[in-house]
């Protein structure tokens, strides 16, 4: 990785980043290596001296973790992407609902479970917890959660009818064919969903900075938008 660039990116960015990398390679001739895994795993690896040049996290927490340990170049940290939290149901099964305080979640679940990421470990789960708390539903919902390790499987639970409802990012819905969005959580119900990017401390070589710039640029922004992300 002397000349090449290596980026560690959250697994939920897999397809969008793949396109960005391809586009960048076509444009600049520089190959970028990428590793997609849980933000937590990536952060720990960077802490352990992984040869990563950039870290593109799915939440602030693990970026903060590295920043606290001076493992990223603070000046290069930018909040790049945003996302929306949505309520999903199996395709064709349900009508739209407006998400607000006092909605009849129990009635919608009808004894079933609410699939989402594990609030303890998966960012989408954490946002879901915030939103449900805000809506006054957490006390009821906490015991009803089906906590997936990965958004992919929260989607599957809903798609396969194991869970009547799920909470995921709006960008995730594209992965699964058998689900539909039945409601969008209000922005104010949770802290803003954020994908920060930064250069790893001491690795800000010219090619790395160039790719960093490209991700922050408009060409990349178009790609991210195509995949449903809000671009900051």
């Amino acid at each position, binding site marked *: 990785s002397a000349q090449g660039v290596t980026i560690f990116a959250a697994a939920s960015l897999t397809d969008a980043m793949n396109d960005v990398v391809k586009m960048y390679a076509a444009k600049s001739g520089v190959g970028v290596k990428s590793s997609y895994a849980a933000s937590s795993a990536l952060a720990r690896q960077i802490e352990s001296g992984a040869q990563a040049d950039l870290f593109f996290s799915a939440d602030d927490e693990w970026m903060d973790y590295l920043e606290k340990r001076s493992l990223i170049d603070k000046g290069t940290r930018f909040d790049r992407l945003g996302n929306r939290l949505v309520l999903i149901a199996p395709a064709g099964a349900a009508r739209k609902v407006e998400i607000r305080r006092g909605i009849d979640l129990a009635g919608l679940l009808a004894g079933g479970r609410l699939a989402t990421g594990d609030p303890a*470990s998966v960012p989408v789960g954490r946002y879901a917890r915030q939103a449900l708390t805000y809506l006054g539903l957490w006390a009821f919902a906490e015991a009803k959660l*089906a906590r997936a390790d990965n958004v992919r499987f929260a989607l599957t639970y809903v798609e*396969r009818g194991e869970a009547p409802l799920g909470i995921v990012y709006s960008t995730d819905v594209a992965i699964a064919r058998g689900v539909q969005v039945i409601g969008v959580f209000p922005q104010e119900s949770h802290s803003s969903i954020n994908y920060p990017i930064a250069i790893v401390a001491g690795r800000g070589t010219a090619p790395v900075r160039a790719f960093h710039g490209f991700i922050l640029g408009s060409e990349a922004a178009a790609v991210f938008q195509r995949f449903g992300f809000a671009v900051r």
Partner: protein
Amino acid sequence: MLTDFELQALWLSLKVALRSVALSLPFALGAAYVLARIRFPGKVLFDGLVHLPLALPPVLVGYLLLLTFGIRGPLGGWLFETFGLRLAFTSLGASIATAVMSFPLMVRSIRLSIESIDSGLESAAATLGASPLDRFFTITLPLMLPGVLSGCVVAFAASLGEFGAVITFVSNIPGETQTLPLAIYSAVQTPDGDAAAARLAALSLVLALSGLMVSEIIARRARMMLGGGPE
């Protein structure tokens, strides 16, 4: 000393692992016997099928289980309609996931011990009037004991540690499906969860060690009975 949360995870892990071993044992015995003793076309394929859960990523196995045993899956749908049984998101489902994952390990162990049995002893039992089934239960099975035990221990330990298939198939529900590894995973994923993870890992270790110890004691007895090595 232990928090309720830890106790819950501990107890659940034990339950899931024990039930998993109990669930897979009869099938493993059958499969091991067939693989060790019977010659048939397509044996390698069957062998491969048995090993499948080992060679595939656990998450994928969990996913396939979801597709099969989920409410819309062929088997899951039937189970639900016939017995009102739901597996996804239940501890029973967790046991099934761990049973499937540890199945090849159990089969291997048992098969190995069947293959090391002197078939002359079974012949001797036959001349003494024992039918094939009788022989199996009075000669083959007891002589297989070390392998069966070893298989159970590996399966138990593997069940204690199984993560990917469980979390994928039955998700991570505290008190229902959150076994120790899932709890550890959650802790590790939290930036300051290291201490909690360490405690949980220690618990896991103690559990595994206890299982091993029990099995060692049984094995020593069995070995003494069988008149084996120098121990």
